[in-house]
């Protein structure tokens, strides 16, 4: 187990390194870094000063070195608009995004897994057909459109739910639903196919041969095994959710990281944007690592993987 963890940790570190390198290079190579880093409407002297500050006249690898040094010490830039360090802003907004993602994930699993199991156990029947339709719709409707339509219905026409902000539990319902809908469909699809695979496996066959009641076969033998790929996907999706939530957060003015990113672009606050991208990517790497470890805990076979 320890070897496994160490190895995965190594990969994670490598990925973080490559991530920062990529972002660093992209900025340096494709645009004029000074213009980006400067406030909109900066004068020539200000630009020159920024160039000096960033060390843009120095060799690339020295620049990268200071970039990395900053990254590792938590200095991810300074936002113009808010006049605050990016890291602080990120940290302040992160809990909101996490909350939204958690509720949306819970929703997607609560809807996705049971409907997937139902579709698999009743494969070929009306239930399965309904499930397929649900999956298709979910995967095809853009989340922000769902959000907008929901606002139309529940805020404008019915007046039941608030359309923006994050004050009360009521505020989280619509954004979570809009965000989670796509993933509910994805989870349902995966649960269904995973369940079908498992139901056709040799150990399920043996379980039936043992004379176990079908309910026990499904609930005990099939369920846990079928869930493994779904959990993996859910873990990866959680982080994707946080990052894809940009549009949903914008629609609902939900004060999370996505909204922060939107503000960054709207106000041409490049350091903010760059910082968020760096942090977002790093978060994915870290979460992937944790998911891998969790996977090993759940499935005893993985631990032996050298």
């Amino acid at each position: 187990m320890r070897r496994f963890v160490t190895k995965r940790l190594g990969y994670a570190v490598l990925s973080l390194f490559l991530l920062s390198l990529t972002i660093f290079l992209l900025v340096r190579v494709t645009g004029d870094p000074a213009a980006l880093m400067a406030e909109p409407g900066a004068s020539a002297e200000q630009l020159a000063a920024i160039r000096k500050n960033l060390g843009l006249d120095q060799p690339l690898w020295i620049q990268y070195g200071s970039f990395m040094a900053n990254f590792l010490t938590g200095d991810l830039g300074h936002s113009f608009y808010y006049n605050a360090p990016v890291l602080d802003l990120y940290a302040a907004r992160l809990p909101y995004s996490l909350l939204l993602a958690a509720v949306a994930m819970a929703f997607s699993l609560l809807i996705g897994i049971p409907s997937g199991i139902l579709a698999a156990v009743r494969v070929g029947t009306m239930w399965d057909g309904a499930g397929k339709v649900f999956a298709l719709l979910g995967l095809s409707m853009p989340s922000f459109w769902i959000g907008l339509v929901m606002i139309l219905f529940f805020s404008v026409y019915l007046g039941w739910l608030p359309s923006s902000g994050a004050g009360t539990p009521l505020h989280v319902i619509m954004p979570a639903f809009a965000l989670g809908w796509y993933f509910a469909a994805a989870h349902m699809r995966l649960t269904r196919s995973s369940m079908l695979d498992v139901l056709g496996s040799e150990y399920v066959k043996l379980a039936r041969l043992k004379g176990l009641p079908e309910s026990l076969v499904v609930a005990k033998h099939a369920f846990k095994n079928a869930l493994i790929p779904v959990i993996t996907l859910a873990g990866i999706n959680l982080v994707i959710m946080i990052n894809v939530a940009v549009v949903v957060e914008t629609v609902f003015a939900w004060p999370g990281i996505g909204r922060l990113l939107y503000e960054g672009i709207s106000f041409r606050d490049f350091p903010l944007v760059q910082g968020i991208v760096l942090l977002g990517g790093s978060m994915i790497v870290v979460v992937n690592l944790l998911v891998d470890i969790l996977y090993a805990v759940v499935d005893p076979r993985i631990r032996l993987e050298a």
Partner: protein
Amino acid sequence: MTNGALLELVKVSTHYVSSRGARVVRAVDAVSLSVDAGETLGIVGESGSGKSTLALTIMRLLPPAAHIVSGQMLLDGEDLLQKPPAEMRHIRGKRIAMILQDPMASLNPLFTIGDQVAEPIRVHEAATRTSAWRRARELLRAVRIPSPEQRVLQYPHEMSGGMRQRIVGAIGISCEPRLLIADEPTTSLDLTIQAQYLNLLRELQRAHGLALIFITHNLGIVAKMCDTIAVMYAGRIVEYGPVRDIFRSPAHPYTQALLNSIPRLGDPGQRLAAIDGQPPDPANPPAGCAFAPRCMRALARCHVEAPPESTPGDGRTARCWLATPDLSHVAHLPHNPAEASALS
């Protein structure tokens, strides 16, 4: 067929029907056989001959596309085909048990050995967790697994192949069934382990008075373990009877070809005798005898008309025109192909 047999199949047929009803595959075609308590029956055949389908038919655990279209399956005189699903479920595992071919795939990787061995006991005998697990440890001891107290808490991937197969065997006998069906139980084992495992099965059989049905393509195992043999080809039983008699003088050319294809020691110049050709497409069987296209002794009649069951000897049946009474003078084929060609 003997009366008072433990299991008796009378002209059982299982067909696979494609979803649009266009293709019908006769996986099991009018099969009749019987097994007594304490007896070991070997079912032999190539892949696709229908042996595994036959086993699943007996257990009535066929996939949705398959239907048992005719016949009777009598267990202690009761017809299994008439039983409602709930009752059949109680029979599975408790009165008839089955072991599958690949022990690694048959065991659920996420549950402990103890859990999986104790499970049928808890379901069929309503045992408590403690007593079921105690029995599980005893069973592991009975199948010669060392330190069962530790093993019950381990997972399938922590065991060797031989141990896994024993565990599957333990699961099989856990509720003391009358009949155990073993589908190619040694195919995935090393040769050295095979012999040990077979001995174990024989011991268990003697200790519990089990009837065994052995499904295999390995005639050596049949010779060692079985009292009776049934040879299957294209879903039909083409020869059936006591092992000794059939090995000495097979009535069906397919049986003879199988026996010939076993390499013999001490004969360095001998070429391996394979059977030419391929088994027939199950959805499109040839007219007449299914083996005729590959048969060295086929008559014109064989290609046109399928032979009925005949009895070339005591307790023996065969489906071959060469074995029917009007051609009985060539019924007993000599074991040596040279003599055979001298005869014809």
